[in-house]
């Protein structure tokens, strides 16, 4: 069961943390003439350096007829480059004593290496090769088409509850490109021609659409010199970079549906529309989610799992989206229980927060937990680098890394009650019942 819930979390949280640090984090910034923004965070306590690049492109920048491109590129970018042989990219990093990875969200794509600090130049060379010379060729594209389509089958189509996020998104958004998930549509990927990938690469993998982070045992002057050396002559793109400016209208009608999946246990999922990440209310929604479902003493857990024994597991997950997004609350009913009863019990807990101010002591616990979590989360260079990158990418304000905690702590009990009323409205949500495939036969028989 724990594993199962973990999978759900993995789906919803395709992001590294984005919390702040209680102690000031120093950094310097500059721009290259081609528009590449560079952030250098010096910390010489350990001889390692994080070299990372965040491209401001995610699934929301895709052509609706060609979904899944942003994520596809995350794969393609490991194929090699003009000067790096196929499948050598990982090995170069590992044999230099480093590790690497990448991830894609609806809003951005992130690549990083953690290297011994004497390999800084190697890291810059690797990432500049990726930006300038990635192998966007028929061999690589054909290979990765196979891999990505297989990944979709494994992680979305055949994994229990794997389709959860795509199913919610396509019902919650009618205009905004958040209506499709990062994995996209396998048919779109299959149908895409090589030129289309090349075009995507040329439009989005450009210095003026990226932020480079160098964090750790690196000196600013050297960082500047080497960045200039490897990235200075990479041409920027001309013309506007496509950013959808679609506003999803405020919802006043509940959407309710059933999804039949290859699962044993049903699930009740509620997705409420909420403001964008970084807004004051988003912080309040995050704390409210924590109140509802973080830890065994949280409201939903205590009531639904412990006391009423209606649910096996509960969760509340705000999606950290650049544009207004969703908070998802979900529960898995105990064997044999009716989804409707469980949903009523979930609603009751929400109503409780809507109607009553939460007790002072519980609020203090919430703040303590948030503080501990934020402090812990930014303890590593890797997390600090990705937080700096996201804060710059979304808000053009990397310093939010130092002010985030204050934003959480500025949230009041009244705010929690208010956002519960403003956003956790029944007519502002999508409700999905996930039911076992076997029960579909039943309904079609009748």
């Amino acid at each position, binding site marked *: 069961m724990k594993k199962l819930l973990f999978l759900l979390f993995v789906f919803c949280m395709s992001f590294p943390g984005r919390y702040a640090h209680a102690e000031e984090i120093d950094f310097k910034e500059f721009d290259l003439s081609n528009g590449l923004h560079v952030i250098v965070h010096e910390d010489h306590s350990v001889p390692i350096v994080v070299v990372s690049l965040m491209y401001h492109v995610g699934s929301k920048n895709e052509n609706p007829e060609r979904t899944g491109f942003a994520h596809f590129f995350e794969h393609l970018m490991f194929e090699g480059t003009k000067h790096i042989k196929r499948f050598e990219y990982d090995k170069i990093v590992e044999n230099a*004593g480093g590790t690497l990875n990448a991830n894609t969200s609806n809003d951005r794509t992130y690549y990083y290496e953690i290297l011994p600090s004497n390999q800084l130049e190697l890291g810059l060379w690797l990432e500049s090769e990726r930006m300038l*010379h990635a192998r966007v060729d028929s061999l690589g594209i054909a290979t990765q088409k196979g891999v990505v389509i297989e990944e979709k089958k494994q992680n979305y189509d055949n994994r229990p509850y794997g389709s959860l996020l795509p199913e919610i998104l396509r019902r919650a958004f009618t205009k905004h490109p958040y209506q499709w998930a990062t994995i996209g549509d396998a048919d779109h990927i299959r149908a895409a021609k090589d030129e289309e990938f090349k075009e995507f690469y040329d439009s989005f993998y450009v210095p003026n659409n990226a932020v480079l982070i160098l964090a750790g045992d690196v000196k600013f002057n050297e960082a500047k010199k080497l960045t200039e050396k490897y990235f200075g*002559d990479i041409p920027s793109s001309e013309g506007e970079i496509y950013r959808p400016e679609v506003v999803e209208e405020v919802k006043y009608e509940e959407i309710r549906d059933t999804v039949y999946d290859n699962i044993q246990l049903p699930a009740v999922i509620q997705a409420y529309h909420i403001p964008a990440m970084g807004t004051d209310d988003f912080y309040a929604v995050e704390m409210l989610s924590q109140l509802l479902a973080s830890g065994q003493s949280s409201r939903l857990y205590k009531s639904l799992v412990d006391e009423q024994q209606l649910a096996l597991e509960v969760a509340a997950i705000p999606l950290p989206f650049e544009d207004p997004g969703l908070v998802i609350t979900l529960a898995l009913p105990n064997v044999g229980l009716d989804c409707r009863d469980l949903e009523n019990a979930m609603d009751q807990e929400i109503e409780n927060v809507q109607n009553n101010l939460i007790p002072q002591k519980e609020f203090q616990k919430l703040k303590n937990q948030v503080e501990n979590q934020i402090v812990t989360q930014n303890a590593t260079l890797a997390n600090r680098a990705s937080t700096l990158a996201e804060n710059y990418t979304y808000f053009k304000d990397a310093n939010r890394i130092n002010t985030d905690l204050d934003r959480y702590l500025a949230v009041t009990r009244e705010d929690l009650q208010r956002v519960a009323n403003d956003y956790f409205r029944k007519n502002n949500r999508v409700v999905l019942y996930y039911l076992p495939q*076997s029960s579909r*036969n039943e309904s079609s028989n009748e």
Partner: protein
Amino acid sequence: MKRIVFSFILLLLTLCAGAQLDRSVRPKPGPAPEIQIGDYELFTLDNGLKVIVVENHKIPKVTYHLSLDIDPVMEGEQAGYVSMAGNLLRAGTTSRSKAEIDEAIDFIGASLNTRATGISGSVLKKFSDNFLEIMNDVLLHPSFPEEEVNKLKKQHISAIQASKSDASSIASNINSVVTFGATHPYGEVLSETSIEKITRDLCQTYYQTYFKPNTAYLIMVGDITLKEAKRQAEQYFGSWQKGDVPSHSYDEPALNTRPRVVIGNRDGAVQSVIMVSYPLVFKPGNPDAIKASVMNSVLGGGSLSSRLNANLREDKAFTYGAYSSLNADKLTGSFNASAEVKGAATDTAMQEVLYEMKHMKDETVDPEMIEQVKNRMAGSFARSLERPETIADFALNIEKYGLPQDYYATYLKKLSQVTPADIQEMARKYLKPENANIIAVGDARELSKIMVRFSKDGTVEEFDYYGNPVKKSEIPADITANNVINSYIKAIGGRENLLKVKDIRMISGTVMQGMNIEIGISRKAPNKICVETKMGDQVLTKQVFDGVKGKVKSPMGDQELTGNELESMRIEATLNPELNLDKLGITTELTGAGDVNGKKVWKVKMTMPSGTSSTDAYDQDTGLKVQSVTQQGQMTVTTTYSDYREVEGVLYPFKSVQSLGSQVVEIETKSIEINTGIDDSVFE
């Protein structure tokens, strides 16, 4: 002069700037960075408690770690009590219940863990005193509540039962016993019996004997100054009373003089766990430690390009991963190489592991591979330094094992100096395939045949889950599968009595996730069945078979059974299948003798027409069926039967325990009614 040099540099710089960057050239690394390993402070309280302080003010958190430096204890008949005593520290104090401890720790967003050799936790600096107050209470006033002891015993027993059918657990137990021997604390294996024997007093005595400040270290890491550390150590640990702590010494386990081949059985296994292991004198921080760990990384460190992975995984696809480890330990070190491999490839895979070990001794490793391994190790060492806890571990090791103060500071330098000749020397010194335990756990009947090739004198020893030798009871000529099944039929009441049963209704109960579930099974000759599970009045699922058609009904709807599922249902539904094995197309095979919960059994493998099979165990004395093991996909389901009682001349098991993965379900039968004339409509 100065000016000339200056303009020369300037010229050079302009030249560089003007030159086109040759991107085809991979940049060379700069000079290896200096590693600054954080310092630590050490002071000792009057009661002998040694306190290590590692200051790191990056984040406002402090980690507290109390570590006992004591010799491992032989637990004997009550194996398991030491770790249980550790768990119990946090389960209640003289002034706080377990729930109160949990609540108080949650409120400050902290964590607190206790174990047999210490207590640890971390907390925001501003709540560190609140935290220490609880830690102090847990350390000085644990109450070992009886109900928590019983709860833990139950959990431990469930865990043992669940791991009995897990090949890795079986292999690990066998390995402990054969590598360290039953008279060594590392050779002790927990059993249901040993857990049952644990008492609250035993746990409390362990705590009272070994939790003394004079053999303990307190490590404080994070956002704390020496001054604060001194104040907190004194305030929360100063009143802790010192006392004598017994020391223990054990004989160094003996190395085999020749390979010892050991197998373990897991009924129905399609994979085998293979392991090569032996004890070593290999203390933490010994002069060979770094060179030997490079050697081990080349052989079987985590990377996919290690020798074991390159051979067994990448080249031959025998396994998903093969690893080796060289474990340093103050008491007794050990070597271990293991993999989970396809059953049919068990001996070939083992041969390759032994070959790779020998190959390391016979030939020097390519210097380029060694460089890569060293780079990876250096990188992971450097990354580990980001955690202040790593510095604390280093400090503790230096103090505990008496290592040179610069042991870790010079780690990278020593690592970089390792040569191919060193690797070969280490391989020759520490790889001992000719003295190893050669262990395989899987289908023992097959293993006993194929593993014999590794033994010099043709001996293959078999051990059970508990690491006890399985006596090779040759199957007497007069025992056949048919005999065993016939004596079972006789034991439960005989053919005649069984045939008198026309229908049967059985009500059983179980508890799942804290809820009472009722299971009602109705059967009617020749092959009708209805299995209904209910919670309260609500029907959760219902499976029926009316002799022709089968269905699964649930609140979510009905599902008609087809194909193999229907076939198995047909057999499942047959009343007394043992009387009609031929007719049902079930073939039987006596696979050997064994042991189930202390009873000697015969094992019979029943293969259904669909090809699926179960291995049933029948008590050699009573003839009764005591266990059935089936494979469901990747999962093994083990059902044990007990508490046979007579109903109308036939014996039925009133208790059965099913274990599936880590889940264990106990089912107790409440009533059995015979020949009540169940209506056919029940089965539709």
